[in-house]
């Protein structure tokens, strides 16, 4: 286990300097939209919160943390916060695989295709799409979180944004529950799958869904993706821990203790593998973590886009 203080101060420092927990400047992380020709005006604003885009970097940095956990090197982490974030961040960006970065972008393009197919009137504005600060909140850096969240929310408010589409559970929870409480600014927040209107013939496919904690338990939205799948003739197998009682994939412990995170992930992967069906995740953290366990897992949007 790493010293939480070192991890928290490194993350807090990164968010303060670069608005990204990994210290990678936004122009390097958020590039997926460049050839997607998305409208700049619409009823909803698509707000990715950059979580899908961060996943390849999280994977890479966890590989390093895994290597050093429990060794003398772990103690050196405290010096990381003295390195300007953009230098360490660019270093991390350079060692992260291009293929993984492209995959993360493809998920977002798939989500756009699904929204278009469902005739949702949405816009994308990269200047307004920012990290929500949720990791700071989870780590207990309340001051850092509130300061960051206020900046993000005020920017959206100034641009006249009222309705927002999110794509991951962490950003959805931040915007729906935490922003009103801690910034005083309210938006109407929908997760992309709540707006989908897709139909297709029964394809006889069965999948096992892994509900992320924030969608299943905190926001109680786990019925929605199941309905979307039913409309496409895809059924979901029943497992013991699902919906409001879903089990965590272990992802949130990744930066503090990769070994603890792996232990929890292995347990969850076993539960999900029990029905012997392909596994569907709908959170970038869960997806990355379950992939690491070697499970046959893909993102909900990847499955949906194949069936429209």
């Amino acid at each position, binding site marked *: 286990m790493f010293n939480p203080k070192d991890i928290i101060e490194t993350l807090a420092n990164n968010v303060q300097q670069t608005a990204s927990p990994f210290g990678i400047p936004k122009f390097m992380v958020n590039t997926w939209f460049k050839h997607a020709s998305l409208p700049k005006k619409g009823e909803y604003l698509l707000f990715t919160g950059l979580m899908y885009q961060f996943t390849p970097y999280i994977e890479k940095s966890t590989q390093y943390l895994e290597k050093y956990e429990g060794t003398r090197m772990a103690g050196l982490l405290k010096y990381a916060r003295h390195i300007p974030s953009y230098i360490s961040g660019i270093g991390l960006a350079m060692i992260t695989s291009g293929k993984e970065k492209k995959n993360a972008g493809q998920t977002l393009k798939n989500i756009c295709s699904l929204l278009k197919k469902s005739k949702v009137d949405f816009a994308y504005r990269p200047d307004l799409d920012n990290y929500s600060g949720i990791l700071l909140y989870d780590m207990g*850096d309340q001051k850092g979180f509130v300061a960051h969240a206020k900046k993000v929310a005020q920017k959206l408010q100034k641009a006249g944004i009222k309705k927002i589409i999110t794509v991951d559970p962490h950003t959805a929870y931040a915007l729906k529950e935490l922003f009103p409480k801690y910034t005083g600014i309210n938006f109407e927040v929908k997760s992309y799958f709540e707006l989908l209107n897709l139909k297709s013939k029964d394809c006889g496919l069965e999948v096992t869904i892994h509900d992320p904690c924030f969608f299943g338990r*905190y926001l109680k939205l786990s019925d929605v993706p199941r309905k979307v799948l039913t409309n496409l003739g895809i059924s979901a197998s029943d497992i013991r821990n699902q919906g409001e009682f879903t089990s965590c994939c272990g992802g949130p412990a990744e930066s503090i203790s990769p070994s603890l995170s792996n232990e929890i992930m292995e347990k969850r992967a076993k539960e999900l593998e029990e029905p012997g069906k392909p596994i569907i995740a709908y959170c970038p953290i869960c997806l990355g973590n379950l992939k690491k366990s070697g499970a046959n897992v893909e993102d909900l949007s990847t499955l949906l886009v194949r069936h429209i």
Partner: protein
Amino acid sequence: MSLVNLDFAEELKEYSEDTALECFNCGTCAAICPLVHDNFPRRMIRYVQIGARQKILENSDELWRCLHCGLCTHTCPREADPGEIILGLKRFVVANFRRS
């Protein structure tokens, strides 16, 4: 020897809702918690109830094992909100090390 701090509950109000006294120590949270670790989070909630401020600071690293998954809060029969108490304790510890 551990000292008991009678003002601890008051001090914690700055960091989270004051729900720890609702807890009657049934252990449901510790039984369902995926960490399966040494009576966590129940033990921490007990420390809050008895004002064992120092004990929490001594064992503070444990708080960051918590995944904030919410299972404990969801199943607590007393609505003591154990998950949010843990999050509040993280905030308390962060504020503490930033002050020192």
